[in-house]
C-alpha cells in the first residue's frame, strides 16, 4: 500500500494545470505562466485534462460561478488554488502540488463534494443568477444584419423548460420534439443558416474559461455544423465595475507578445507559442541582460513567424476587418499577427497600442465564421475592455 501511495504522489508531482485568467490580472498571469514553463508543468486545454485548477487573480461573481462549474468537471485527484499576488506564485504552486499529492495519496476522493450535473442544471432552471443573463455594457453586441438577435432567444433558449416551444422566437421551430427535455437539457431547434438552409442550431458559449481566450470574454452564439452565427460578446462581471489594475508595465511589446502567444497557441503552433512566452518572461525581468536576451528572443520569434509559409497560408483571408476605424488591425488574421510581430520585435518600447475594437465590431466579424476561424479572429484582435479604458496602466503586480 505504501508503495502504491508513493507512486501516486510521484505521478502527480508534475500536474496538468488549467489556468483561469481573471480580467485585470494579466501581468500576474505572465508570472504564473513563466513559473509553470520553468517547472515544465503542461497547460491543460479542458478540465478533463487538468489536475490543478489555478485561478489567477480575484474573480468577480459571475466568473467565480463559471470557475465553480469548471471545477465540478475536473477529475480526481484534483486541487484548486488561487493566486492573487506575484510574490506568492512559487510558494502557492509548491503548496498546490503538495495538496494534490495528498489528495492522490489518499486514493479516495475524500473531498469530493462534486455537484451532480442535474443539480447544476436545476440551479439554472430555477432562474438563479447566471452570467448568461448579463448583458453588461454590450448587451446588443450582435453583428449587423443578424435577424432576430434580440438577446431574448439567447437568454432563454433552453432555460425554462420548453422555452423553445413559446412563440416569439422568430425562426426557432421545434421540429416535433414538443419541448421535451432529456436529462435536463432540450434538443437543438432549427433556424436558417448562412447559406440559406434550415439547420439545427446548437446554442453554445465560448469563454470565459478557455485556453487562448481573452480573459473574461464571453461569447454566446449558435453553431450550425461548425459555423457560428448570432454571435453576442460580453464581458463577465462588467457591471460590477472592474477596479483592479488593468494590464501591464506599459510596454506595448509585452502586450504584443501576449497576443502572439495566444494567437500561435490557437493556431496550433505550441513551440512558437512557448517561444513567445519565454521572450515575454525575459522582457519582464529586472536584469538588463535578461531584457536584452528577451529582445533577441522576440526578434527571432518574429522572424520565424513572419517567414512561416504554412502559417501565412493557414491564416490568410480569415476575419478581414476592412475599414479605417480598425487602424493597424485592418486586414486579415495574418496581417494582424505580423503587426504584433513588428511591435514585439521593436528595439524601443513603441508608443501606446491603439485602443482595441469594440465588442460589437468583433461580433460582426465573427458572424458566419467557422469555429476555428472565429477563435483565430478573437485571439488576434485586441478588444476594448470597459475596465481597461477606465484604468490607467499601473505597475506590475
Amino acid at each position, binding site marked *: 500500500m505504501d508503495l502504491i501511495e508513493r507512486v501516486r504522489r510521484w505521478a502527480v508531482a508534475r500536474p496538468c494545470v488549467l489556468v483561469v485568467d481573471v480580467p485585470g490580472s494579466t501581468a500576474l498571469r505572465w508570472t504564473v505562466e513563466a513559473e509553470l514553463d520553468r517547472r515544465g508543468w503542461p497547460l491543460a486545454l479542458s478540465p478533463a485534462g487538468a489536475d490543478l485548477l489555478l485561478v489567477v487573480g480575484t474573480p468577480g461573481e459571475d466568473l467565480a460561478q463559471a470557475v465553480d462549474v469548471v471545477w465540478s468537471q475536473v477529475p480526481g485527484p484534483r486541487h484548486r488554488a488561487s493566486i492573487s499576488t506575484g510574490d506568492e506564485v512559487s510558494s502557492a504552486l509548491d503548496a498546490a502540488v503538495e495538496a494534490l499529492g495528498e489528495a492522490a495519496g489518499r486514493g479516495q476522493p475524500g473531498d469530493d463534494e462534486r455537484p451532480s450535473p442535474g443539480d447544476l442544471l436545476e440551479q439554472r432552471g430555477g432562474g438563479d443568477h447566471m452570467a448568461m443573463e448579463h448583458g453588461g455594457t454590450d448587451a446588443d453586441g450582435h453583428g449587423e444584419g443578424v435577424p432576430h438577435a434580440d438577446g431574448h432567444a439567447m437568454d432563454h433558449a433552453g432555460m425554462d423548460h420548453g422555452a423553445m416551444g413559446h412563440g416569439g422566437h422568430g425562426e426557432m421551430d421545434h*421540429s*416535433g*420534439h414538443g419541448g*421535451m427535455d*432529456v*436529462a435536463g437539457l432540450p*434538443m437543438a431547434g432549427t433556424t436558417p443558416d*448562412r*447559406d*440559406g438552409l434550415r439547420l439545427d442550431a446548437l446554442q453554445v458559449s465560448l469563454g470565459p474559461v478557455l485556453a487562448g481566450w481573452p480573459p473574461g470574454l464571453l461569447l454566446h452564439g449558435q453553431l450550425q455544423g461548425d459555423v457560428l452565427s448570432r454571435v453576442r460578446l460580453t464581458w463577465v462581471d462588467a457591471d460590477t465595475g472592474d477596479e483592479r489594475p488593468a494590464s501591464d508595465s506599459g510596454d506595448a511589446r509585452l502586450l504584443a507578445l501576449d497576443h502572439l502567444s495566444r494567437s500561435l497557441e490557437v493556431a496550433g503552433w505550441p513551440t512558437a507559442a512557448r517561444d513567445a512566452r519565454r521572450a515575454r518572461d525575459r522582457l519582464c525581468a529586472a536584469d538588463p541582460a535578461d531584457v536584452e536576451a528577451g529582445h533577441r528572443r522576440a526578434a527571432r520569434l518574429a522572424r520565424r513567424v513572419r517567414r512561416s509559409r504554412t502559417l501565412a*497560408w493557414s491564416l*490568410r*483571408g*480569415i476575419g478581414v476587418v476592412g475599414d479605417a476605424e480598425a487602424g493597424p488591425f485592418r486586414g486579415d488574421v495574418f496581417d494582424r499577427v505580423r503587426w504584433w510581430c513588428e511591435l514585439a520585435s521593436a528595439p524601443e518600447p513603441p508608443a501606446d497600442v491603439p485602443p482595441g475594437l469594440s465588442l460589437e465590431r468583433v461580433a460582426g466579424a465573427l458572424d*458566419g465564421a*467557422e469555429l476555428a*476561424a472565429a477563435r483565430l479572429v478573437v485571439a488576434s484582435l485586441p478588444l476594448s475592455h470597459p475596465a481597461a479604458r477606465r484604468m490607467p496602466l499601473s505597475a506590475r503586480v
Partner: protein
Amino acid sequence: MLTDLPAWAVAAVIALGGLSVAAGIAVFVVDSMARATFALLTSFLAVAGILVALQLPYLAFVTALMMTIEMALMAVFMIMFMMNPAGLMPMTMVHNARGSAVLGAGAFVLLTVGIWTMDWPTRNGAVPADSTRQLGEAIMGSHMLVMLVIGVALFATIIAGTVLATARGRYDRFGAELDAARPDDPVPGGLPR
C-alpha cells in the same frame, strides 16, 4: 464448397455469419443513428472476417477498409439528415415494421436455403498461391472491360453527384463571364482558385 475448408474455417464462417446477421438486425432495433451505422459496420467487418476464413486476404482487408470509411461517411449523412440522431428522444426509423420484417425474413430464408441446398460446382484447379495477383491478372486481362465501364460510371457519378449536391457552381464563384481573379466563396480554400 465448405468441405474444401478446414474445420476451424467452417466454424469461423458460421460464427461470423451469425454475428453479421445479428448486427444487421441491431441496425433496426437501436434508436441512435450512430449506433445503427456502427452496427452495420460490425456486420460488414464480420463479412470481412468470413473472407479471411475463406482465404481471400486482399478482398477481406479491402472490404474492412472500404466499408469502415463508407460507414463513417454514412454516419455523417445520417446525423446530418435524421431528426434526433443520438436517439435521445424515443423514435423509430422503421415504417411498416411488420411488412418489412416478413419480407426481410422471407428473403433471408430463401437465400440461405438456396445457398445451402444448391449444387455448387466442384472446384477444378488448386487454390492460387497468391489470390491478389490472380485478381490483378483477371482485372487487367479478361475483365478489362469491367474496369473501363466502371471508370466511366465513376466519372459520371462524380459529375452528377457534384451537380446535384452543390447549390453553388462556377458561375456563382467567378461571375457570369467566369473572369473573376479570385472566387467568391464563404470559406476560402487552400489554393488561390
